[in-house]
């Protein structure tokens, strides 16, 4: 059986994680192609509905990457995001998807290597957990994904 390739959505703050992803690219750092980035003006923009929506639409894992605590461009956006992530984790446990499929990370725009590390770390975690219970019927394999990109 082909190896499970999870679909991961990363909600990234423009001021840190998204720039860190750029830096990781400039540094030619490798990180799994499973991670799809969504740029946000601030992680304070994430909402329970958006996080749930990602899972409902087929994500196997979701993470939110914001600025280091105390460094938010909008002062408290990342603190609020963390609270919402914690709330959504409980909700995902109730639904049966599992709160461990959602995580909040903090990093700065200069942490390109850390960005790649988070992407690898989280992808490994989701691979370990297997497909989301909502996607048990279907999960794209490496071959299918290659076909998708062609």
């Amino acid at each position, binding site marked *: 059986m082909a190896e499970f390739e999870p679909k991961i959505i990363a909600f990234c703050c423009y001021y840190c994680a998204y720039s860190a992803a750029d830096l990781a690219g400039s540094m030619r750092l490798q990180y799994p192609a499973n991670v799809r980035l969504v740029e946000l003006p601030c992680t304070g923009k994430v909402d329970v*509905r958006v996080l749930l929506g990602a899972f*409902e639409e087929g994500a196997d894992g979701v993470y939110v990457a914001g600025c280091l605590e105390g460094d938010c461009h909008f002062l408290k956006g990342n603190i609020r995001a963390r609270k919402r992530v914690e709330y959504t984790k409980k*909700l995902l446990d109730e*639904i*049966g998807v599992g709160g461990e499929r959602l995580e909040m990370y903090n990093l700065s725009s200069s942490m390109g290597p850390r960005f790649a590390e988070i992407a690898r770390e989280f992808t490994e975690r989701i691979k370990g957990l297997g497909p989301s*219970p909502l996607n048990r019927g279907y999960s794209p394999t490496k071959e299918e994904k290659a076909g998708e990109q062609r």
Partner: protein
Amino acid sequence: MIVAEPKPLAEVSELIGEARKILVVGCGGCVTVCLAGGEKETGILAASLRMLRKKEGKTLETLEVTLTRQCDPEYVQLLDKYVTEDVEGIVSLACGVGVQFLAERFNKWVVPALNTKFAGGAVEHGVWEERCGLCGECILHQTGGICPIIRCSKSLLNGPCGGSQGGKCEVNPDLPCAWQLIYDRLKALGKLDLLLEIRPPKDWSKARDGGPRKVVREDVRM
């Protein structure tokens, strides 16, 4: 406002049973303000129920509508076009009043998604406290704006009981004694003599003891 909080997801899921299509109705009144049943919470509940069902390999179709208020037939009737034959159940995110108004209008299985808690207000972001006992005859002018009926654990009307220690209630060390608050407040206002007035016993027939209540305004009836 009426303060409510969501029922556990598993409970709501059980209430809707095997329904294949449900109408999830939010309320734009009190429960929107207390973040329990507004448009956003309606979306979250509908998505959660759909995901729960999907996890079991089945599907659930949800229609989401948030009314301005559910405690007013004028708004409830706007749901008529959504309550079609194939809708097998209605989930209401309103207080108990809204749930009943929907159940009265539609010949469908209507279930509550919230537990209605009390009449209160937000003391800070995310914290709501009970403030009114809905007793039907307000006495706040006698007690310095502090309600002994709801804020005293025993609803005493004639001063503190022996459980008042150091300004706190014996029920909970974090709970201030309402009568201590009343005394302090009246003292600060120079109105302690209010406490010396002799008053007849409270007429509880104006509260729930008299059965369900009704207010009629003839001048505004159609």
